[in-house]
């Protein structure tokens, strides 16, 4: 008798897979989120790659006074065009239009000051709003090198070792690995993937509760020899199935994108393998159960599909909040994060992708918290379905 829920489950699944609108939305989300990820990464990689190989162009005013600098610049593949003079508005304009990365102005007093060993001024004009940081750094590097070369040769000419210029030797160590750097960046994006489970099953959750009420078919169903909890369980599992299918497809597509993109170009890597990914998907099954239960418990209170849609468009934001707020707070990963449903899955994925050794506790908490939330939600729904007030309004 207790497997009557499977009768409901089969019928609800059959109906759900014939719902072209719901399936369309599911496919769209499966494709759109990973696509956004691909576009964002592609743009960044593109900029990084171009930045290294693209030519840097400069305008130098008064180039005749600094032949050494000019040759240093040209050695670094920086194109120089010499000009006699330019007014400030002209310079601003030229920089804004990104015709050149920077303008170097060597004043008329330069040669005199230089020969008298006084600080000889060179002006570097650039526009920081045009976002050409890496190119600008190359120019600045040459300028600093120019300064160092002149200083060393002057000291040497006076019989002082140029080592006097560098009393402190700075050694930098970056403890971030490629993997950890990428994960910080990909973090918020990946969190959205798990939150999408709430969207995959939304249509089905509403159709199977508010839709039944609108069609006036719920009363007849309740008059059949089936317990109300068997009824709600069949609907719940059918709804969750859609979320599971959607999430698995989406994570697979995202994984493929991350695997086959040239992430090394931006110093990142995605080292998660298929077995680990499958493990993540399994951990997300309780989350899908929770998403389905949560939406059913809410949507069943609406009398029509449209009313449910309005209600749910606000309600679905709630489980997504932690995944948006917490990354913004920039906290360290700690145990409490594994107790909040969507956030737990996101955190777990990130930690595993970073290559961290994650004990058994995070897995247990991730699965347990979603499962508990799911059971509470569906318990409420089952109780509500039996209550007299609900039956009267059916």
């Amino acid at each position, binding site marked *: 008798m207790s497997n009557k829920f499977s009768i409901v489950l089969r*019928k609800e699944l059959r*109906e759900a897979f014939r719902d072209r609108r719901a399936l369309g939305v599911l496919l769209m989300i499966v494709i759109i989120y990973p696509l956004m990820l691909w576009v964002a990464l592609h743009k960044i990689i593109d900029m990084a790659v171009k930045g290294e190989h693209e030519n840097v162009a400069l305008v130098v005013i008064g180039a005749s006074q600094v032949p050494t600098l000019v040759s240093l610049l040209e050695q670094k593949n920086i194109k120089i065009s010499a000009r006699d003079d330019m007014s400030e508005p002209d310079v601003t304009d030229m920089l804004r239009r990104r015709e050149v990365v920077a303008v170097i102005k060597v004043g008329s007093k330069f040669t005199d000051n230089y020969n008298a060993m006084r600080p000889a001024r060179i002006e570097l004009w650039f526009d920081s709003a045009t976002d050409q940081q890496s190119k600008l750094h190359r120019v600045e590097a040459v300028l600093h090198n120019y300064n160092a070369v002149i200083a060393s040769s002057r000291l040497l000419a006076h019989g002082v070792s140029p080592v006097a210029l560098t009393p402190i030797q700075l050694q930098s160590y970056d403890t971030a690995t490629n993997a950890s750097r990428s994960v910080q960046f990909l973090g918020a994006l990946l969190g959205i993937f798990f939150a999408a489970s709430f969207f995959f099953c939304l249509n089905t959750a509403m159709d199977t509760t508010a839709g039944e009420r609108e*069609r006036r078919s719920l009363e*007849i169903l309740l*008059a*059949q*020899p089936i317990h109300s909890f068997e009824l709600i369980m069949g609907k719940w599992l059918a709804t969750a199935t859609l979320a599971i299918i959607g999430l698995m497809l989406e994570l697979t597509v995202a994984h493929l994108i991350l695997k086959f993109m040239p992430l090394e170009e931006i110093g990142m890597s995605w080292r998660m393998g298929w077995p680990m990914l499958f493990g993540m998907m399994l951990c997300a099954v309780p989350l899908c159960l929770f998403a389905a239960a949560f939406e059913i418990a809410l949507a069943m209170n609406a009398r029509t599909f449209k009313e449910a849609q309005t209600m749910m468009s606000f309600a679905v934001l709630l489980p997504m909040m932690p995944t948006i707020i917490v990354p913004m707070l920039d906290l360290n990963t700690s145990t409490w994060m594994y107790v909040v449903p969507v956030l737990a899955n996101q955190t777990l994925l990130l930690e595993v992708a970073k290559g961290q050794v994650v004990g058994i506790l995070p897995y247990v908490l991730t699965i347990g918290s979603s499962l508990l939330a799911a059971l509470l939600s569906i318990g409420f729904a089952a109780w509500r379905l039996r209550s007299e007030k609900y039956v009267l309004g059916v």
Partner: protein
Amino acid sequence: MIKVDDVRKKFGNIQALAGVSFVTSDGKTTALLGPNGAGKTTLLRLLVGLLQRDQGAISIDGLDPATDPIAARRSIGFLTDQFGLYDRLTTREHLVYFGELNGMNRQSIARGIDEVVALLAMEDILDRRAKGFSQGQRIKVALARTLLHKPRHLLLDEPSRGLDVMSTRALRRTLGALRAEGACIIMATHVMQEVTHLCDDVIVIAKGQTVAQGSPADICERTGIASLEDAFVSLVGTDEGIA
């Protein structure tokens, strides 16, 4: 057989049923006749176990829907005026669903479908999806799913509301056939025509109480009024809510 003894039901401050008692027998069609708001729908819901009564006793072939609703429902077919079909399922899939819910196995469902299709002349819509069905086709599907598990008791809530002539005749034919087979049919209605043409027995209900029970002829005799409609009005004390 359905026995109802002094059943009461209150919703907040409203006394929906204030002491309803009657007995309906197998092989008879009994009308539950009353004006709007008399408590007919509430009573039917109590019989199916959708609501719990405050007081009184209900027995459906010896089973109490309050203590064992699942068992009681097995012998009941419930038809409301809202047909509630699933647009994406075919007629056959509807029937299989409800057959399975009622505990029928695959062969009995197949046999049941054959019988019900013959009874209601549904061959043309059997494998069509319910989207776009006419009203008459809808009631055929609704009737079919109600009758599939051959319930001993049929509870109909305002069944011919919104039906055209053809569908009403089909309904009448079906009910006649079932009555002949020994089913116990209760029809909640406030349509006089239905009562005089279809029913052997009438239970008059007003303001949540049974006012009279008997065949249409008995009612007329008792009140000394020739037309059932006038007899009913005099019993109930108001002509509000009669079709």
